[in-house]
């Protein structure tokens, strides 16, 4: 039972805890799953030049990004024995403390879920054309740099 249909990754604004809960609940029907690894990226209140980040505004080259997400999914499904794999990324404004990235990997045994989830997160940050603009309290902003 492999679920790898193409779907939209981008969600307008923050990814909510209730959306995550619904995703988890939807997997209770997949009785061969033994392990889920979930990565959540949360917007930090970083201090940059004495100003505190209050939100990040995400923009993307969406057509290319969806293509990249699809390629990442295909490669990871080919490499690891997974049951399910879902990736969601915010577009638009996400406030500090809110979730902007949700990677959800399910497998029979835990090793595959752990390995695949980590690999996906690294590849999303490296390969997908998304840009974050960090917004401060005074509405000034700076383009985010990933480490």
């Amino acid at each position, binding site marked *: 039972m492999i679920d790898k249909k193409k779907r939209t990754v981008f969600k307008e604004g923050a990814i909510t805890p209730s959306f995550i809960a619904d995703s988890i609940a939807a997997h209770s029907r997949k009785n061969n799953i033994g392990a889920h690894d979930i990565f959540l*990226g949360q917007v930090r209140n970083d201090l940059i030049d004495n100003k505190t980040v209050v939100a990040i505004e995400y*923009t993307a080259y969406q057509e290319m990004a969806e293509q990249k997400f699809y390629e990442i999914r295909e490669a990871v499904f080919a490499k690891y024995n997974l049951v399910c794999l879902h990736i969601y990324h915010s577009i638009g404004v996400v406030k500090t403390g809110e979730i902007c990235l949700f990677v959800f990997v399910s497998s029979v045994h835990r090793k595959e879920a752990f390995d695949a989830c980590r690999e996906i997160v690294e590849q999303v*940050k490296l390969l*997908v054309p*998304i840009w974050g603009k960090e917004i401060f309290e005074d509405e000034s902003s700076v383009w985010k740099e*990933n480490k």
Partner: protein
Amino acid sequence: MKINILVFGQLYDITKVSQLTIYEVNNTEQLTRKLIEQFPELSKFKFSIAVNKKIVQQNTILNNEDTVALLPAFSGG
């Protein structure tokens, strides 16, 4: 010969438009040179170039109606 240009991230702060059109260039090197003539500030930034959604590392021949995207370092996640 008409090339559609898409501009993203901090490069947009320079061009002030997210889409523009460049005529009469045959390859990505010529294109980059022409863009830097028009927006000299661009030369201060590192960016990748995608032709029809594929990143190209070397000088690449362009065809009419190709879409070229200017991509500064990604910062998703």
